[in-house]
């Protein structure tokens, strides 16, 4: 499954939001969850991967999920992506 989300955090996805995304993604052990942005695709379960995308406020990012609970994972990770955490 695939859906686009927009980053709302004014400072972009820095350490704290990236940690929150990674933790949420790891709540779905049997789903593959990827983030695709700017021509790069990384695992949402890796904080390093999420950070290296360098997503800023207003950027649109694709979340792609496969496996068990793919739909739930898509919504849950998407919601964290759109949360404002400073």
């Amino acid at each position, binding site marked *: 499954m695939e859906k686009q989300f927009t980053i709302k955090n*004014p400072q972009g996805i820095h350490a704290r939001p990236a940690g929150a995304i990674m933790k949420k993604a790891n709540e779905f052990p049997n789903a593959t969850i990827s983030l695709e942005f700017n021509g790069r695709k990384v695992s949402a379960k890796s904080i390093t991967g999420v950070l290296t995308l360098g997503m800023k*406020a207003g950027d649109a990012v694709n979340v792609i999920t496969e496996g068990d609970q793919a739909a739930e994972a898509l919504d849950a990770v998407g919601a964290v992506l759109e949360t404002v955490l400073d």
Partner: protein
Amino acid sequence: MQLKGIAAASGYAIGPAFIMQEQAQDVERKVIDASQVEAEVSRLQHAVNQAMAELEKIKDDTAAKLGEHHAEIFATHILVLQDEEFVGQALEKVRSESVNAEYALHEVAQQLIDIFSSMDSEYMRERAADFRDVSKRVLAALSGEKSASLNDFESPVVLFAHDLTPSDTAQLDRSKVAGFATNIGGRTSHSAIMARSMEIPAVVGLKNGTETVNNGDMIILDGARGLIIVHPDQDTIAAYEEKKQKFEKRQEEMKLYKDKPTVTLDGKHVELVANIGNPEDALGARNNGAEGVGLFRTEFLYMGRDNFPTEEEQYQAYTTVAETLGKEKPVVIRTLDIGGDKELPYLELPHEMNPFLGYRAIRICLDQVDLFKTQLRAILRASVHGNIKMMYPMIATLAELRQANAILDETKAELDKEGIAYNKDMEVGMMVEIPAAAIIADQLAKEVDFFSIGTNDLVQYTMAADRMNEKVSHLTQPFNPAVLRLIRMVIDAAHKEGKWAGMCGEMAGNLTAIPILLGLGLDEFSMSASSVLPARVLLSRLSREDMQDIAAQALMMEHEDEIQRFVQERVEAVNQLLV
């Protein structure tokens, strides 16, 4: 000798220099025997575990000392050390290339550091520091060395380092390190952010501070100006000692006013809000206790790109700010103020002899209506997400105001037709920065909800003195009686129509100007976020009624110097707070 860097955390430190030497870390590539590979893997794993244990302790100490918020960076570092993409890759490299643990880790970290360093946002570039910090800690664990403490000083020093990692900074003891200066880094580096919270004065980005200064040199560190004075004379030291005392007293007082409304001694509430230039600044405004945003410049959306921002991009940016500040807090969005000295490559503007008097701001928007309408639609749509207001820059005539309002009405009608929601009662005001507008403020006031006085341009246009031209900089006089009288006209005109008047130029945060502005009846003061708390302390100690008298006297004076001296002498609170 003076060194100039970036002001990272305000305050003053006076003391001998201590230069922190970088420990060179061995990252030589060594091929290891196949039989030793698993031992090397477990050596790396062991070092990673040790680093995690150290980080757990630093995290707990930091949480106790500075609060959970600052400790979270170390929680992130721990997550990085648990991440397959980082340590997992390094372990993999040891196995696949039969190389030493140091080299494998360093290579993987360096790749990530390179990715962050090439990002276009300063904030993201700074994330490279997190990976440097983490890998440095693991490398230290691999070498078996204990990292030296930065607090082994008998009396307070001014610490100079090439760079301080977040964990170095978090562990500084304020009674041993009076301030620090680094060669690299910016205002959003972790060390700079932490220094501000820990209230350790800091200057970053000195480039070659550690090479220029010697151990034991007497140093004054001026964190407000980003300045290092090496071997100051006795008079300079005495002057800075006084500044330091005043500053520290003011800091203590400011804490009491952080999330309070701004109320004068005689019980009048004035609105104290911040100027911001992009959505990131909204956090700074909130964290500095601003009651909202009095000027949201929208040029950032248009600059540094090849085409116009879409309605959707703008809508997202405006919504982000409104949501960051919270529903009730006002956010005044200024429509596009481009032209003059700000150019857009994709909007071909002719070269002008006098760009400040030329085709700019509302003049462009009224001419290129589609461009204007896109922004108006985005602002209107965002208006349902918070307390959004809007204002036009550079209005000179009543006709321009009417034309802008007509385009706004047209845009609203289009949204109505499309069934798109917006706040029908959104306040619409204008900036007063052209003397012509100030003089007919009584006529303009009937057709706006508010005025916001832009003093930087108002001074430049009133005095006919280019504020970029050093030869005439003595004429940039915000306290000139001519300017003050125009300000009074604008405030009076607004009040006569039952409207409010604000100010969003630098003058609004000027501690000497505030008593006069309060006395003239200004309702809203909008300034850079860092000026908000000092302004609130001052306003809380002034009575509007007393300041009416001060303002009346000031406006009768002949020179701007005289007016400033008069306020500083007569208003004791100003004198106490000026640092």
